[in-house]
């Protein structure tokens, strides 16, 4: 029986706490009385995933017939799937998407459907490489579809490939991938790593265009999503739900498949990363020592490639299919069951160690903007109820924050860092002054469409992701970050945690409460 999440109160006997620090780690001694929040232990995987998938497809939730009942010869079937941003780290083969899609294709073949197209639901993310597609779908599916051009990637800038569905009652444009919108059925295959994923967001975001996305990817929406992980208090989700309902009303049929994973995030040799420090065995200690010593002397590029080759032993804990909202309600409960940790009361200072990976730098470089986004966009929002840190409190991040960018994946980030952040760090100001020119820039569009680049507007979205935190916090400090890059982000660099705590005292006084978010493995704090 896996143990639930845990909030430790640091006393004098507590061993130092592990902080993620990019491609390295730090062991930090937190002041007595600080709290450390640990994720629940991994739930048991499904004993027979294929049987569970089959059962879900054949026994759908909500107002939906079984998948087989929706398939008929001569129909157009589009299978959309989550892109390389999920799960984190990428999972060991076989990937859940491949498993589910094989089951869907079996049923399609049995029903005599021969117009089937797969679409990677990129939204404005970078195109996946052949190797990434092959990994996500498995070699069988990949080899059957890719050579014939039936494996496609969503292109939000294809003038002929986008269709306007309508406007919501709030005046939000809904534009979708033409192939998907004009299909008789869309099957969307999700990996619901966190509670934010899935639901109407799958199609309304994953297969949409900039014109559509800008209605909910903007500073106002983000500030009013408290948090993204709590669908009922998230303006981001409200907008997506309005759009999803409009899509349903327009006659587009969606068969939603959602899967959840357990928190088994790191392979055996990195076992210490998901254990509580005082429970480390000799082997864990040795593993930690070996890893951290070796990494100290490894050039960053090599360390990066070592970490990015990690394949997570995530296992599927549930799969449900059918009507979008009914499916998503069950999925959300399952995610909560795995990740929720009850925390009582907010804290003055929230510390977090940021790992080497975020959704937008899989097989890539975690640039400073992504560091900000991971800390303030994602980890800050891992709460339900109230934010972990109080209004006006301080967040202390630990990440080396190098001034480094991937020239192919993040070209607009480089310019954003040079031209926009050097002028303003205010999300609202940059959205009015700069967003449009980056979003409509023909060169970025060219790179997004033909190379493997994130869309020109994407760095803005990363910054808007932080809007709620920037609005809420009194100060942000980065421990061990490259000072120049950290200052460009509008944060303060500190060389040690002790220095950072000293600096924080300007904002929160001499005797603050401190909480450390011990993630990944991912958790969701239920703050009361």
């Amino acid at each position, binding site marked *: 029986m896996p143990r639930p999440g845990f909030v430790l109160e640091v006393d004098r006997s507590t061993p130092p706490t592990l902080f993620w620090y990019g491609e390295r780690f730090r062991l930090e001694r937190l002041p007595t009385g600080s709290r450390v929040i640990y994720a629940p232990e991994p739930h048991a995987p499904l004993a027979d995933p294929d049987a569970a998938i089959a059962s879900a497809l054949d026994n759908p939730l909500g107002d939906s017939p079984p998948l087989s009942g929706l398939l008929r010869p001569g129909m157009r079937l589009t299978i959309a799937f989550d892109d390389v941003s999920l799960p984190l780290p990428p999972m060991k083969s076989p990937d859940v998407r491949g498993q589910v899609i094989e089951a869907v294709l079996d049923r399609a073949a049995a029903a005599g459907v021969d117009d089937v197209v797969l679409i990677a639901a990129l939204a404005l993310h970078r195109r996946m490489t*052949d*190797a990434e597609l*092959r*990994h996500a779908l498995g*070699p069988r599916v990949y080899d059957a579809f890719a050579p014939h051009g039936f494996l496609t990637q969503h292109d939000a800038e294809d003038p002929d490939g986008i269709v306007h569905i309508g406007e919501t009652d709030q005046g939000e444009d809904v534009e979708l991938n033409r192939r998907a919108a004009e299909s008789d059925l869309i099957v969307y295959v999700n990996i619901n790593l966190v509670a934010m994923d899935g639901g109407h967001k799958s199609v309304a975001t994953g297969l949409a265009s900039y014109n559509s996305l800008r209605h909910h990817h903007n500073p106002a929406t983000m500030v009013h999503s408290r948090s993204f992980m709590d669908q009922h208090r998230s303006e981001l989700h409200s907008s997506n739900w309005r759009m999803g309902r409009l899509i349903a009303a327009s006659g587009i049929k969606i068969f939603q498949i959602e899967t959840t994973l357990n928190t088994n995030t790191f392979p055996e040799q990195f076992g210490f990363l998901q254990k509580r420090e005082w429970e480390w065995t000799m082997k864990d200690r040795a593993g930690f020592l070996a890893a951290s010593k070796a990494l100290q002397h490894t050039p*960053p*590029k090599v360390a990066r490639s070592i970490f990015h080759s990690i394949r997570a032993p995530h296992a599927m804990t549930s799969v449900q299919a059918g009507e979008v909202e009914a499916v998503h309600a069950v999925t959300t409960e399952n995610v909560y069951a795995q990740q929720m940790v009850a925390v009582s009361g907010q804290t003055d200072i929230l510390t977090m160690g940021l790992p080497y990976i975020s959704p937008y730098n899989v097989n890539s*470089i975690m*640039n400073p903007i992504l560091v900000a986004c991971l800390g303030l966009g994602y980890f800050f929002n891992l709460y339900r109820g109230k934010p972990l840190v109080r209004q006006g409190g301080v967040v202390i991040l630990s990440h080396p924050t*190098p*001034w*480094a*960018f*991937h*020239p*192919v994946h993040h*070209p607009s980030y*480089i*310019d954003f860092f*040079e*031209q926009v952040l050097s002028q303003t760090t205010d999300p609202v100001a940059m959205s009015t002054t700069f967003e449009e020119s980056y979003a409509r*820039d*023909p*060169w970025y569009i*060219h*790179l997004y469409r*033909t*190379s*493997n*680049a994130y869309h020109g507007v994407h760095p803005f979205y990363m910054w808007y992701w932080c809007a709620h935190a920037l609005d809420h916090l009194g100060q942000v400090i980065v421990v061990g970050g490259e000072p120049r890059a950290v200052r460009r982000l509008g944060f303060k660099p500190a060389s040690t945690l002790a220095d950072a705590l000293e600096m924080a005292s300007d904002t929160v006084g001499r005797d603050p409460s401190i909480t450390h978010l011990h993630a990944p493995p991912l958790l969701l704090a239920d703050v009361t």
Partner: protein
Amino acid sequence: MIAEKLAGKRIAITGATGFLGTALTERLLRSVPGCELFLLVRPGRKGADERIRREIFRNDCFDRLRSERGESFGEELSRRVTALAGDVTTDGLGLSEEDARRLATCDVVIHSAAAVSFDSPLDQAVQVNLLGPSRVAQAIISAHDSYAVDRPFPHLIAVSTAYVAGNRRGDSPERLMSEAFFPTEASWRAEVSASTRTRSDADAASRTPEMLARFDADARRELGAAGSPLLARRAERLRADWVSDRMVQAGKSRAQGLGWPDAYAYTKALGELALSEQHGPVPTSIVRPSIIESAFAEPRPGWIRGFRMAEPVIISYARGLLREFPGIPEGVIDVIPVDLVAAAIITVAGRGIAEGPPPAGSLPVYQVASGSINPLRYGQLVDLVQEWFSEHPLYDSHGQPIEVPEWSFPGRGRVQRQLVRADKLLARAEKVVGAVPFRGPTAELSARIEERRSEAKRALGYVELYGSYTETEAIFRVDNLMSLWDTLDAPDRGAFCFDPRVVEWPTYVREVHLPSVVTHARARTAPGKRVSGERRDRARAAVLHPARQLAAFDLENTLIASNVVESYAWLATRELPLTERARFTASLLKEAPGLLSLDRHDRGDFLRHFYRHYEGAELAELSAKARQMFTSLLLARSFPDGIRRVREHRALGHRTILITGALDFVVEPLRPLFDEIVCASMRVENGVVTGELMRHPPTGEARAAVIEDFARAQGFSLEECVSYADSSSDLPMLEVVGFPVAVNPDAKLATMARRRGWHTETWRPAPGGSRPLLPLAPGPHEDESTSVQLRELIRRARQASAIMSARWRHRREAVQR
């Protein structure tokens, strides 16, 4: 009363654009209200009138007069000043009939035109300094005989130099050359014809095949593969410079052989001698100033024009560059302020009017010098200078004061040896750095070495040129001058003071001369680091100004850290199994040295040769692979700052053009950045590439032509175009535009850019981006499990690479044929 005597008189002046000439013109206009001036200047391109307006009256010498006269200044100039277009190196001075008539009706002619540089080429110094005075006298005679027979001849006052005395020691009296101390048998006529012959000999020597080959090699070493027209122009320039150097050397050697320190003094001396023979009926006086320096009082203390003899030495000393300067501490350094010389000349002219000019044949001489009655010792001067700069130091580029060295008055030989050694050392360093293919900031090291070297060279030049002046032991007598002074009444003495005794040296050096020299040299006199980005930001803003019209870009190492060989290697290995890839790499590496030297020699030949590698490849396949290469090679190695710059130009409404020797299918994905791409393309037959180029690839001067054509077609002005390139072989495309930008320059280009003040940018690949050692393409799915990879390998090994096998097949067939 001098001013009254000269009122209403017509005075001609040669050399009015010079230091003394300007002072003289100003003084006459201001202090002799009634006189009329005729200024003989070379017409140049702009015409004589324009030249005197620009080069004389705009000088700050006239600030005082301008403010005294107010609005009427312009009117007064046009009423009192007339330009005569002429040239003292031409017989008859090249005067028009009208101008000759004007000359004939003058009352006084002051000849102050001279080649004052101590290192003028021999023949030039001979033409100006030796023949000039006689030509002026001859022109006066012939103009007089033609147009003003009834008038008396004008009084000719020839400005010479006290240093005609040569290297003699002791008293140097105010007597003619012929009477006093002409020491040799040399006849000035023989010297004139010898100088012409020396010029043609030097010219002939420079045209031997060996020398021409040397100039060509030097030009190539300097510019690299910049294209033949540019190399030819440079080689010709080097040849002309070489001839000129030879003539300078010849002048120096000849002068020293005959007992003068340099060609200036030597030609001036022979010029006096010639004038004394040739002045005929023209009444003539000779004025010999010593070293003329900044004004004592008129028009204002410290006024100076041009960088004169002592200034470069003083400034180099203050900058810490001249660690030593030879000289005898107790020796006299004979300096005379310019306003004293001008006053003396005007007095000589006024006396000629008052008492009648000297009878023809008598040629009185007036030396204007301080050494005999108010000497300034060299040791004293050095102390004053050192003291002053210790209190008012110059500042280096870091904003720190420069400590001035203590001079130990060594012999000239020792200083020269030191400097020659420094020059040699720096030359070697420059050569070493130049041979290593550094780029960007490292390459600028070579530019800095080059700068140090030219500083050392300059210092050496000063020592060689001026060394003898600090070692002079002649004492210039001023008896004639002083008896002239004695005839003046008090008002004249006030208005036209030329008594060398009025100068109090410490005050003059500290309060007049040095401040003026420092201001004039625009040296840094305040501490604090100059905001180093300031100049760069200004240059960048100028480049990115909306008024610009076109931005032309080179590709390799300007926008992308890659080259045609890498593209080829990537494309060729895209389908190769591992073992084949290793073999391929080895073969390409073996070829590398040959390719490199070909590239250095001629970019076009290199491309033509290298692109043969593509022979037999299918175009469709190449294009498809090139699209993948765009992501994995070109973008991965691009300079984000460079790409951003292209886009900034576009955003400003400038047209953008890419000029590259890369192949069309390689650069095709870059098309959205540019309005126009000019690149190489190969002939295609039945979908297969032949390896032959369709037309000459855009390299060297062809790039300049591309920009010119494009600009002409769009109606753009080249002055408003910007050009970005990284290598000296791109020089033509940089030179043709108004705003050249050197990007990550190689050593040669860095040196040139620094010398010409071109804006330089350092663009780097994205920080953190990976740069593989070899530009080999990854196999289709490199991250697959080993078993899959092995299977793939076996499969691909069976079907050998399309490109490679096609080439091999073709070669086999060729051999069989």
